[in-house]
């Protein structure tokens, strides 16, 4: 497999008045060319921090504690500023969580995209760049005559689409989409996600989707990584993870959102709150909220290990689902604990 991006035990903390926020802790993952990875987790678990680390756009109060990020086998934290600048947008582009605000209010939308193209491809003339912007607008479904409008003349959905068009402008090898559709209604959300997915397949681009909503991730990702309190707790092929989730947190997330597999189940939230990352719990960070927690979970940090081909988890007492997920959910609604049989 041709690896495009690799995070190797990447750990990043923020310095605040109250102490160090352990926002990203020992994240290890790799992404192949053309692959789509979904990064899912509750709000505040560090998803955006991971994305910003990959873009090398961390704020001044951040510190990379250990680990590396390799893009095309080069450590981006040892690249010069100029090399990083050239890698951005041409190599890795990003659709920001605050897509609405990522357009400069005093420049015409088209110009902001043309600017990115001519910066990275000096051989392209401004006219060619304009033509490309027109075709990008067509691709994301914005009327062409809107190219020369200002951002405030766009609707929210159009801004979102413009930002997507902007991310695709330089044919990047990887696009990180941080909650690209949260500001939109569900129908438009779905449509845009499918559109991005189609474009991705067409030009064999890699993608990292970030969302707190498993159903969004499930639709478009090849690989899923579940994050909790700055750590990865489970990762594997989307089919595996969603059919046979192993980490209790993954199960909890899947119960909390409308089903992706079509079966109806009652929505159940995970009890408790995500921990404060200034002082995360010892042992497994999820143990205070986990109904399967044992003494071991409170004391020892679970190791990251393979549970199936390409499927990893970090849990002392992984869930064992024997039947289908829907059966397990039904059983659960009947009062049993998930995969109770496997866990004496």
């Amino acid at each position, binding site marked *: 497999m041709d690896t495009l991006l690799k995070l190797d035990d990447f750990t990043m903390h923020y310095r605040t008045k109250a102490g160090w926020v352990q926002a990203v802790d020992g994240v290890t993952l790799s992404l192949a060319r053309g692959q789509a990875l979904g990064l899912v987790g509750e709000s505040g678990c560090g998803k955006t921090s991971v994305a910003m680390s990959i873009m090398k756009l961390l704020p001044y109060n951040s510190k990379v504690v250990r680990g590396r990020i390799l893009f095309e086998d080069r450590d981006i934290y040892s690249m010069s500023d100029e090399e990083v600048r050239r890698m951005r947008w041409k190599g890795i582009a990003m659709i920001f969580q605050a897509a609405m605000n*990522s357009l400069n209010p005093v420049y015409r939308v088209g110009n902001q995209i043309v600017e990115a193209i001519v910066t990275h491809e000096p051989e392209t003339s401004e006219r060619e760049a304009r033509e490309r912007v027109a075709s990008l607008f067509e691709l994301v479904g914005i009327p062409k005559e809107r190219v020369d409008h200002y951002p405030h003349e766009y609707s929210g959905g159009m801004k979102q689409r413009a930002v997507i068009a902007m991310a695709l402008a330089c044919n990047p090898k990887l696009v990180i989409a941080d909650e690209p559709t949260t500001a939109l209604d569900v129908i438009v959300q779905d449509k845009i996600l499918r559109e991005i997915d189609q474009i991705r397949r067409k030009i064999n681009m890699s993608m990292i989707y970030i969302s707190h909503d498993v159903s969004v991730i499930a639709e478009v990702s090849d690989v899923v990584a579940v994050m909790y309190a700055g750590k990865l707790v489970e990762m594997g092929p989307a089919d595996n993870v969603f059919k046979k989730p192993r980490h209790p947190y993954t199960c909890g997330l899947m119960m909390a959102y409308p089903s992706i597999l079509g079966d109806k189940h009652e929505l159940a939230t995970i009890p408790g709150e995500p921990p404060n990352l200034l002082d995360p719990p010892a042992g497994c960070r999820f143990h205070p909220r986990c109904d399967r927690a044992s003494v071991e979970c409170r004391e020892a940090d679970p190791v990251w290990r393979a549970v199936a081909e390409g499927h990893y988890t970090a849990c002392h007492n992984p869930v064992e689902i024997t039947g289908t997920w829907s059966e397990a959910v039904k059983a659960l609604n009947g009062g049993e604990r998930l995969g109770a049989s496997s866990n004496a």
Partner: protein
Amino acid sequence: MRRYLLNRLGQVVLTLIIYITLVYFLLQAMPGDITQMYLANPRIPQAAREELQKQLGLDQGVVMQYLNYLKNFFSGELGVSFSHYPRPVWDILMERLPRTFVLFLTAHVLSFYLGYLLGRIIAWRRGKVVDYAATVVGITFWTAFYPLLSLVLIWVFAYTLKLLPLNQFIEPRLWQGAPFPTNTVFGYMVYGGGAVAVGLFLVFYAFLRGLKRSRRNTARAWLSAFAIIAVALAVAWRTGLLVYIWDIASHMILPVCTLTLISFAGTMLLMRDSMLETVQEDYVMAARAKGLPDTIVRDRYAARTAMLPTVTSLVLSLASSMSGGLVTETMFSWPGLGQILFHSALANDYPLATGALAFTGVFLLIAHFVADILYAVLDPRITYAGQPAVEG
């Protein structure tokens, strides 16, 4: 946009009428009236006194007098100066106005630009040595006592180093038997300077307009700019104007520098503050993510939106230039509007004082009007009467 402008223009005219009314009644209320000297003088025969009263229009009621004043003002009839008798007020003002205008416009544009440039650099390098250094230096000048600072500069550069002329508008000895009158040379200077400025603007606009700035176009722009300046200088040299132009220009250097030094910190700190906010904006982060060079992110993204509030400060500084003008023109004996206002008030020269005050008001109103237009051009989000100020 047009409707907005017309509306605004209407407001300007209305404000102007209110202003000159105030000026009129304020001066009326001032004690000591030059006409009393003649009208109450028993040695002037009764018939002559009545004749004089009629000539001055004092036989009519207050309302009639006021209406006459308004009518005369709007037909450009400002009367004849008492202290410069028999020169018409209009003439005097027209001679003085360009001098004040050129001096202060130069100083304010320079100080604004310097403040803008420094502000954007120190905001970008917040907390670094440049930030502290520029802030300390700027505030030192900002809080300095203005007349003292001018005296110090005059003492250093004119008296001790003898690099620049002490004061005044020209060096009288040089102009003895000069082939051109001062005002003509000054006129050439203003028009020529204006033409060069427009030329430079057009050149830079033509070559550096696009989003793509090739090195070749940048070089071309600078070359053409130098060519324009060289041609202008050559023309001035050939016509023999250059020495005289240089004389006036060198007399401007000290007052312009003093004004700039004392006021650039205002724009600088405002720009710094405003930009410290915009650097946090998501679109600045997005611009960085796009891999744009650092200076472009700074100039086109962070500084561009941050400059909007500073435009107001530019106008306010223009507005205050009249009061500052009085001090500057006195310190440097610069024969401008401020000086004439001062002298005419001392000399009880009502027509001239009224005219000078009225002109100051017109000046300010125009400045505010220009600021509104500038705002509309700089910020496409501003809409007037429901329509974007700048089309599409």
